[in-house]
């Protein structure tokens, strides 16, 4: 038996009228990220980790003084205090290192079966895991990176790279199609940047030694500390002498590596400017070269994107590691229909980023790595404003000492603005618009770079359509800045050539017969 219910008739208007809600006037509708519940300082313990007053070169398995007898200061960019002194290596030191590497290659490492080499890599990976907390703290102090990132991103991936390549060491003959047998190249010269000091070292060293090469590696001038610490781990792991040599120093030291006649391959991560010089120097020398250079990645947000998550991706894409990321999503391309909404959400979101002491576990934004970089960021932002872009910055307080730059974005940017073209390499996002998917990939590709890109849409078919047209080495869909040793990383155009990571990355360290 069916009872007929009287339908409830209640209009939307009546519902609103019935509600007792106070309505905040339009102009006062803002979120208040104030001090109602302030977080107390939560610094990571650092006093147990002693930093030696001086750090030497690591040549032939031993720590040795530089032939110049000179050292340079390494400072903590968050405090401008001197951390330690680092040996200044010159061409003589490089020569010693290359000779040691050649000896190790000829006598030990090049001949060692892959399964034996793999054991050393596994051992290194495990020691890194054991010392992860210490390395994370040192990385933070040396480079200004927030401990949250060094602890949760850098160091786990560093260990993962050694584990991953340890696994390849005895399986290289299966890595390449057509039964081609890979053989090592010989002595490899590697030059790495300051944005991910240990991570870049792992990206370079792990595949090189897994494939049977020996290494002479130079860190950036501002971030040598953790690589020297990694050299101690190589000693601890019993890695044969000379397999990895660390030459700290300045630009000239790197130049000596690149020009050394007994080096078979150069692997470089850094600026496009230097990358171009390296291409010239190595041309015709028979040295193999891989370059991982700058970027100006487009993060494309369509109107049908999961918008709150896209905002998180945009934030992670540009403010991760203070924007000192070559694959940073520094150009935000927003579909014009949602431009206002996205800008207003970004405005709110940057207010909740916590800037300050990199060793504080709640810090999201650490210090800018070095003073010249800070000046470059300032100059480019000023230029953006002079060219008519609107500046939006977090109102967070900056510490009095150290190098700091607040999370920033520029709206009203067009493709002809300098801030839309040049890599800023800082926490600065350029916000631009597009109308159609075609315009989106056209604008995304309209750059001399091509390292990475991001696409945000809820529509799967649109993702596949777009990613196939983007000329970028890595394209992330509905996520950003995800790294894994199994996934190749590298650029198009002025972002460089060669791949790191994955089976493709092995190819850069092998000769195929």
């Amino acid at each position, binding site marked *: 038996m069916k009872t007929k219910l009287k339908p409830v008739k209640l209009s939307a208007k009546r519902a609103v009228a019935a509600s007792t809600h106070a309505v*905040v006037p339009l102009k006062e*509708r803002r979120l208040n990220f104030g001090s109602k519940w302030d977080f107390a300082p*939560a610094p990571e313990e650092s006093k147990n980790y002693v930093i030696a007053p001086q750090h030497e070169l690591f040549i032939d398995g031993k720590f040795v003084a530089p032939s110049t007898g000179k050292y340079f200061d390494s400072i903590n960019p968050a405090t401008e205090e001197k951390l330690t002194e680092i040996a200044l290596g010159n061409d003589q030191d490089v020569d010693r290192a290359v000779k040691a590497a050649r000896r190790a290659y000829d006598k030990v490492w090049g001949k060692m079966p892959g399964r034996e080499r793999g054991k050393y890599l596994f051992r290194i990976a495990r020691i890194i895991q054991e010392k992860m907390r210490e390395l994370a703290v040192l990385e933070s102090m040396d480079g200004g990176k927030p401990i949250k990132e060094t602890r949760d991103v850098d160091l786990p991936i560093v260990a993962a790279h050694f584990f991953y390549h340890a696994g390849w060491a005895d399986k290289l003959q299966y890595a390449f199609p057509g039964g081609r047998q890979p053989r090592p190249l010989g002595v490899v010269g590697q030059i790495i940047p300051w944005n991910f000091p240990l991570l870049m070292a792992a990206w370079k060293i792990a595949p090189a030694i897994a494939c049977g090469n020996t290494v002479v590696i130079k860190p950036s001038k501002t971030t040598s500390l953790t690589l020297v610490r990694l050299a101690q781990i190589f000693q601890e792991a019993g890695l044969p002498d000379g397999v990895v040599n660390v030459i700290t120093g300045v630009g000239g030291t790197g130049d000596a590596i690149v020009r050394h006649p007994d080096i078979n391959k150069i692997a470089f991560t850094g600026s496009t400017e230097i990358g171009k010089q390296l291409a010239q120097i190595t041309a015709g020398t028979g040295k193999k070269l891989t370059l991982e250079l700058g970027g100006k990645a487009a993060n494309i947000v369509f109107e049908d994107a999961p918008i709150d998550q896209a905002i998180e991706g945009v934030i992670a894409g540009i403010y991760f590691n203070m924007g000192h990321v070559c694959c940073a999503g520094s150009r935000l391309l927003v579909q014009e229909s949602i431009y206002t909404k996205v800008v207003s959400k970004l405005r709110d979101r940057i207010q909740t980023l916590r800037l300050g002491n990199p060793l504080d576990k709640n810090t999201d934004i650490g210090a800018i790595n070095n003073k010249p970089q800070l000046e470059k960021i300032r100059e480019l932002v000023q230029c953006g404003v002079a060219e008519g872009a609107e500046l939006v910055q977090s109102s967070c307080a900056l510490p009095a000492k150290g190098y700091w730059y607040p999370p920033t974005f520029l709206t009203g940017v067009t493709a002809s603005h300098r801030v839309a073209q040049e890599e800023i390499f800082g926490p600065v996002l350029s916000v631009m618009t597009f109308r159609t998917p075609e315009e989106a990939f056209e604008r995304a590709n309209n750059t001399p770079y091509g390292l990475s890109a991001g696409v945000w849409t809820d529509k799967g078919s649109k993702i596949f359509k777009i990613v196939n047209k983007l000329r970028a080495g890595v394209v992330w869909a509905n996520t950003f800045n995800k790294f894994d040793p199994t996934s190749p990383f590298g650029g198009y155009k002025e972002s460089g050539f060669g791949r790191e990571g994955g089976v493709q990355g092995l190819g850069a360290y092998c000769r195929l017969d």
Partner: protein
Amino acid sequence: MKAAALSKRERPEVSIRQSAFGIRNSPVPTVDQVMVEERAASFAKRSIKTSAKLAGLKMAVSMCDLTTLEGKDTPGKVAYLCRKALQPIEAKYNVPNCAAVCVYPNMVKYARKFLGDVSPVNIAAVATGFPSGQYPLRTKLEEVRRTVADGADEIDMVIDRCAFLAGDHAKVFDEIAATKEACGPAHLKVILETGELVTYDNVRLASEIAMQAGGDFIKTSTGKVSPAATMPVTLVMLEAIRDYFFATGIRIGMKPAGGIRTSKQALAYLVMVKETLGDDWLNPQMFRFGASTLVNDVLMQIVKNVEGNYQGSDYFSLP
């Protein structure tokens, strides 16, 4: 977009677009599962120490809806609950009272008797055929009216998940609106029962419907379905509240309920509120925890913070 697929029922007064499908003609945003879970996890990584921890824990107590929802509830049990809500721990610890007690409709009169006519502790009652909601609207509304008449300050209703999942979102809307009307002066919390809605897209849409239909609060769960409250689900709802605030100027409250048992969890939720909606939501008027065992864990941490060492659980009175 999805409006066409909605309801073919004749309802001239309600524009579907306005009622269930977004604010000012913009569709309800979709939610990406991977990223929302990643973001939710990030709040739990905040390190809340010393003074911030103590302040956060006290705030958590003040936001508790101390709950008992069992068939075996009796006037005696309700008295335990009310007394605990009024004074969670000895006065020397300076801990605020809980926001409310949350009981079944039949228990409201006992709670009112215990708490008196004027009390700092509100009486919340679950209603509308809690927990399933599978009852006729007429009886649901009658239940609400009687519960309010018995002295409930707040009504925690459940949405009609049957209608929602069958696609009749307009019915969900109308029931909430009717319940709001039946509530009279009582505040209305709308339980979405996110564990039965399953997807974040559903949670987001249901939040939108609940807010537009007149809910004062949106609440995750009944506590009778697993999973109950989770961080990502709560984040999706907080984001819906944020968009609704900007569109209408109305601040809707949030109540995660079920499964929040530890101080650590509670602090992570508070961090999420702080960094998603800001200071204006960090109070018992705008944010509540629906919980029964949480409060003693929080009190234990508060005492530890003040005294320097942990006390055994027997030193904390049971609600």
